[in-house]
């Protein structure tokens, strides 16, 4: 029994490790509000959403497989939430089945496993019922196959057979073991056997000719303990197999819960954004080589979830661009734009809808962020070291087709040094096939790149109206000699032009 709602050909792994740059991405892209909205108070959904976002898909086909399943979920939200509940109840029910005092004895392991399986039988029957009733309203490959499997593998005959075996494992007619002589003539290799009915009946009247018997006297406490021990040896394998079966079914429910958690998270987010009137769309994933990126009304979903009212979206046409340099006024929306690009990329690559009117982009082999770390001000001397160290770690992991978002990188040294280092990094990255989005105040850097008039580069500038106010929009434009920090300075210090 497989779930396969997240991937066509493999299980989703919610426990797998997160990428090394998880912390940087979470902080630099502001993932927290997005994840909180998806979780809607459920920690497990939070974990799954984070894992899915940070560990994205790498083929357009895989993305479309999820997009279609998600489209089913948006239509049949209640059925999806109900299946999710069945899984959760099965998992929580299992936790409540008591282990018993001798938790390390095969007898108690077996006993518990039989109880758990008995309980799971109920959940499996519920799942079967939901499949019988609703399979017809789902059209995606993922859900279609899932319901079909449930109806086939959980047939009435099969469920009845399971029930019968759970009864057998109570051993009302005693236990028959085989054994051999091991070291020092001690019995070993105890194996539980299926008794032969007729022979067992022949044996029952005592004093027969086959075999030898004895009875442990009622008051022989250590004798009874020895019998228990012997049964434990003989039941070890069966207890293991039965407990593993219970684990496997539990594993099925856990996986079902995990895979549905992603979709439930998406439903939660959809509900939140719809309530705010923010647009959502299914993006069009393109192959890496196309270097596609064009969007209308692309907004920063985390910002939107954190403020009152709607936020400003940007249009961008960066198809075929390997480098996007972003310059211009402080507080002009540069960082917000950079975040919205990164977030939309992550959301697209995990099969989600994205916060935009329309969005079409090449997938990338990994999103990396290199942001200036303000709090490192206190350790002035080590800042450049620290920055270079982080860039070095990125360089170890990023590859062709990667996306690098830089925000004020190399600003911890003087402009000449910083620009030169940045130029070398940017040039090397772009030439290696990494798409670089670079927000900077380093005029020397931006200007020198602009002067190359390279068609693979796009220069955006934070818009500033003639009256000095910001629109938070980014428009194509060449870098200007100073950032508008001068405005602020002049105002605050009352300096004349």
């Amino acid at each position, binding site marked *: *029994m497989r779930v396969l709602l997240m991937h066509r050909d493999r299980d989703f792994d919610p426990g797998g490790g997160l990428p090394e740059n998880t912390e940087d991405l979470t902080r630099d892209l502001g993932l927290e509000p997005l994840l909180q909205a998806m979780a809607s108070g459920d920690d497990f959904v939070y974990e799954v959403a984070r894992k899915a976002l940070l560990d994205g898909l790498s083929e357009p086909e895989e993305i479309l497989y999820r997009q279609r399943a998600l489209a089913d979920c948006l239509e049949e939200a209640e059925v999806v939430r109900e299946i999710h509940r069945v899984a959760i109840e099965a998992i929580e029910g299992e936790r409540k089945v008591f282990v018993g005092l001798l938790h*390390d004895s*095969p007898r108690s*392991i077996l006993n518990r*496993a039989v109880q758990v399986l008995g309980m799971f039988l109920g959940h499996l029957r519920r799942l079967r019922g939901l499949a019988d009733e609703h399979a017809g309203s789902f059209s995606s490959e993922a859900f279609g196959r899932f319901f079909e499997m449930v109806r086939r593998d959980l047939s009435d005959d099969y469920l009845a057979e*399971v029930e019968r075996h759970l009864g057998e494992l109570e051993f009302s*007619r*005693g*236990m*028959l*073991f*085989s*054994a*051999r*002589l091991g*070291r*020092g*003539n*001690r*019995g070993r290799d*105890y*194996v*539980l*056997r*299926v008794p032969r009915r007729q*022979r*067992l009946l022949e*044996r029952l009247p005592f004093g027969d000719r*086959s*075999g*030898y*018997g*004895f*009875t*442990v*006297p*009622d008051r022989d406490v*250590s*004798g009874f*303990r*020895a*019998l228990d*021990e*012997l049964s*434990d040896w*003989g039941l*070890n*394998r*069966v*207890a*293991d*197999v*039965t*407990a*593993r*079966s219970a*684990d*496997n*079914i539990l*594993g099925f429910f856990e996986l079902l819960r995990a895979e549905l958690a992603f979709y439930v998270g998406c439903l939660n987010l959809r509900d939140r954004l719809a309530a705010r009137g923010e647009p959502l769309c299914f993006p069009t994933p393109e192959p890496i080589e196309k270097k596609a990126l064009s969007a209308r009304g692309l907004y920063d979903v985390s910002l939107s979830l954190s403020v009152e009212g709607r936020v400003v979206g940007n249009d961008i046409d960066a198809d075929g661009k390997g480098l996007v340099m972003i310059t211009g006024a402080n507080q002009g929306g540069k960082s917000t734009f950079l975040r919205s690009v990164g977030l939309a990329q992550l959301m697209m690559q995990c099969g989600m809808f994205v916060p935009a009117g329309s969005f079409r982009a090449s997938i990338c082999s990994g999103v990396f962020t290199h942001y200036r770390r303000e709090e490192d001000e206190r350790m002035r001397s080590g800042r450049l070291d620290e920055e270079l160290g982080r860039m070095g770690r990125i360089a170890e992991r990023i590859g062709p087709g990667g996306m690098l978002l830089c925000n004020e990188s190399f600003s911890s040294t003087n402009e000449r040094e910083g620009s030169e280092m940045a130029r070398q990094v940017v040039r090397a990255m772009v030439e290696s096939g990494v798409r670089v989005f670079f927000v900077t105040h380093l005029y020397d850097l931006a200007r020198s790149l602009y002067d190359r008039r390279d068609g693979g580069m796009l220069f955006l500038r934070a818009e500033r109206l003639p009256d000095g106010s910001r629109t938070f929009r980014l428009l194509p434009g060449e870098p200007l000699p100073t950032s508008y920090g001068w405005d602020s300075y002049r105002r605050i210090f009352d300096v004349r032009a």
Partner: protein
Amino acid sequence: MEKTFQSILFEDRRAGELRAAEPTFFSDLRLDAVVEELLSGREEYDLAPFFHTPLREPGEVTYRQEVARDLERGEVREVVEDFARRMRAMRECLSLAGKLHHELQKQRWFLDAAGVYCEAVRSLARELPQREPASRGLRALSDYLAGYAGSEEFSGLEEEVRALREDLAGVVYTVHIRGNRVRVDTYEGEEDYGDEIERVFARFARGAAKDHRVRFRDPPELSHVEERILELVARLNPDVFGRLDEFCRRRRDYLDETVAAFDREVQFYLAYLEYAGRFREAGLPFCYPEVSEEVGETRVEEGFDLALAASLLREGGSVVKNGFHLRHPERILVVTGPNQGGKTTFARMVGQLHYLASLGLPVPAAEAHLHIPDAIFTHFEREEGVERLRSKLEDDLVRLHEILREATGESLIVLNESFSSTTLEDAARIGTDLLGRIERLGALCVCVTFIDELATLGEETVSMVGTVDPEDPSVRTFRIVRKPPEGLAYALALARKYGLTYEDLKRRVKR
């Protein structure tokens, strides 16, 4: 024609000559720690006496060196270690056969002991000659084993064990438990219920599932219920259990004395080689010293103190190696230099090298030409309070006198700050006289001292000096090199580093 095999340690076994007690110089040379460490885990063999008994004749030394060289070859050591493992397993079986109380259990453990023994002998007899040992010792052993393993006595034992083990392994029975009733019967092919359960739930199978099997203790003792079951199994199989009983009576003394002695004595080599292996792994050299009876040329390249190296390796430090070369008539090494500069280590090293060579073992050095001393004497300064100063000097002198009386021209004398518990003038005088005596005696001597004069006494004396880093005189190199004593040079260099020379202090104080 090679001699009949007697012992892997002695070409001619000399019974009763082993020393149980540790030689008196063991702790000064830290050989006590070395031997203790290398014997740990091998207590059952009682090997200490072999390490306490040095050889005297170069012929005896080479007999052992040959064996040790053979055992350094992986393919030879492997078969000997395998043999040793089996013999150890055999002793465990025998010990259980002795300890357990049910006769059917005792018998089975005894059978296993005999079985393991047969395998041990058979495999050693087969494998050893194939590995072509070159030593007199192992070749004689091979011959001995060939005769023994080919004997009627041995192959009869082997065959009996094999048949009994096979028949016992073939016994399969069933136990039916219902409440307090137990029945024992012959197994007749009943199906495995675990397989059936596994099949039923196969459709839920996933990758690696948690293993719920419980690991049971496997104590050798049986509960009384198991004993009853075992007795009934014996009743169901009277033939094989009857033969087992008879075997145990008849084969009580199966163990061959010579084989047993080899098993113990070869551990002398294995213990040491295993210990040496740890140093070699860290890149430190061991070599087979050339040995001579007379005091002639003595030469060591890249030697080191084993005890110190052992603790340095544990702590991850690096080991400094030192050498020396004495040409006739040089016989006395006088070691001077800064404190904590490796002088004592050097002296210990010289003592260890000579002693280990006299055990017939490889020594911690890249190259060594050594004289086998007739005795080793050591006198090391001991940490004592000032109040004991006077009596300490007396004790020292008494001890030194004893040494001079007992030592011969063939002896090695190691002196470490032996006259430090008196004034410099007296110490110089005592030292000069003492070394003069040793010189006339003709013994080999290492003398660690802070008295430079002792290093230039005569042509028998060689001056060795502990050195420091020329860039930073507070850093010791632990290298001991042959050169004249350095007098104040070291102290002045150190003073300069801290700006405390005369000129420095004048400049600084003037400001």
